[in-house]
């Protein structure tokens, strides 16, 4: 990552991703704030990334894959052998 105050988009998205899991240093927060303020693509990335995170957290409850009845019967029979 570059040392100066101007971050590249690559470094910015890296910090955006990291921010969701860990506390950033004051310096990184400042650099991030500056870049996001002037780059519409990275600020869209930040919003969409956050949105995806929120939705992924609901994925287990969404229950979109079911076992077929046939498979269920087969597995149940195997378990009870």
């Amino acid at each position, binding site marked *: 990552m570059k040392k100066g105050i101007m971050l590249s988009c690559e470094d910015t998205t890296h910090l955006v991703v990291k921010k969701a*899991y860990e506390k950033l240093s004051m310096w990184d927060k400042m650099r991030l704030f500056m870049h996001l303020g002037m780059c519409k693509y990275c600020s*869209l990335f930040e919003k*969409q*990334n956050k949105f995806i995170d929120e939705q992924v957290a609901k*994925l287990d409850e969404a229950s979109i894959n079911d*076992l077929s009845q046939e498979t269920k019967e087969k*597995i149940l029979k195997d*378990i009870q052998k």
Partner: protein
Amino acid sequence: MPDPTKSNNKIIAELFTNYSDYLYNYAITRVNDVHIAEDLVQETFISALKGYDSFQSKSKESTWLIAILKNKIIDFYRKKSKQYFQHSLDELQSMDDFFNSKGSWQLDQRPSKWDMDVDKAIEQQEFYETLQQCLVRLNDVQRMAFVMKHLDDEDTDEICKELEITSTNYWVIIHRAKLQLRKCMETNWVKL
């Protein structure tokens, strides 16, 4: 709660009826293979049957079953060779497809505006299906690292230990996974 009047077989059959779809859904998101997911569900119930007498209903049945399944999934990933992991790590290092040499967005990767309203019921199902398909397109290491964090809420150090990767590699894996997921959702859901 253990009920002495019921045989374990019967109890497991009941648990199976109630939770097999839930467990299968949990497994498929994490392993990306229908047959492996089915096997894992089956093994989970076999272990549950063996261990039922020691299950003191300290936790909910679903929590107990998920804990068994989770261990089986981690074992499944552990069995994959380190070589395989190393190979896919090398592949993941380069960000050239997302950013140019100056670190700016490649033209075809630039995020465009999304309408983020998934509350409409008809679209909801479609949305989660797309999300899952996009998760499936990540490679094994990425998916595992991502899923352990987001669905299982595990500590970063713990994930690195379980997948035998350094924390630097972990951030590269996650960064790339996020870029890919975003792009995949933009292509397949937003522009439907």
